[in-house]
């Protein structure tokens, strides 16, 4: 499981790559939480290279999204694969953290 962090002008872009299963979340939860936790900017998360997502990943997004929201920030997830999108939809994650089709839509969400 890999994580890549980019500081854009007004947004932090984090790209995740791999399987967000128990082992994968175990590998990246701390750096992901740290990168979200210190961000003073909104965070957009690229899911296009995430091949699998289970409930521990949803829990990670909820807890980090909550930390960001408490500071007035916002997290948006984008570009899930169809299989990942189905799990996100079944869990209702999109009801509390926006999930959009692509990076342009994610940037529009946080800048809008």
């Amino acid at each position, binding site marked *: 499981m890999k994580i890549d962090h980019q500081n854009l002008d007004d947004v932090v872009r984090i790209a995740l790559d791999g399987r967000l*299963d*128990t*082992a994968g979340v175990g590998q990246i939860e701390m750096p992901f939480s740290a990168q979200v936790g210190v961000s003073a900017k909104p965070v957009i998360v690229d899911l296009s290279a995430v091949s*699998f997502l*289970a*409930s*521990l990943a*949803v*829990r990670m997004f*909820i*807890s980090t*999204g*909550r930390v960001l*929201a408490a500071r007035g920030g916002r997290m948006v997830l984008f570009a899930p694969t*169809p*299989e990942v999108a*189905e*799990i996100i939809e*079944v*869990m*209702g*994650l999109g*009801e*509390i*953290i926006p999930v959009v089709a692509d990076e342009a839509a994610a940037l529009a969400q946080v800048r809008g």
Partner: protein
Amino acid sequence: MRDLRRDPDRLVLTLDNDIAEIAAALPHLEAFGEDAQLGPRLQNRFEVVFEELASNVIRHGFAQGSRQQVRICAAVDAETLTLTVEDDGLPFDPLARPAPAPLTDLASAPEGGLGIGLVARLASRLSYEAPQSGGDDSFRPVNRVTAVLSR
């Protein structure tokens, strides 16, 4: 881990009490799904349900360092994929807790119980029993969870 695959429509795996066994099982689930022509959507649901049920047992169901095991059985027919997860750990019914409420608000969203709630939504049928029989000389199941996924 042992692969006790018996025929093209049935896969049986026995996992040791080690979270690394989840990843080690994946090639077997993938090969089984390919032979059964599950397709990407059902294959993903299969792997998610397996991940949730097996990891839950290994993380919570055994005394640490014990030599207990999880036995997985996947069976397909024309309409369903049935996944049975048995373990010989502590007696525990994961379905006894109420499912978490739907996510409506980030501030109050629960972080616990999400896994079994996800399985309950993906499966057309989900059940628990404490088996009174079954297994073999090396494995006597204490808990059995069965999830049926529609094709």
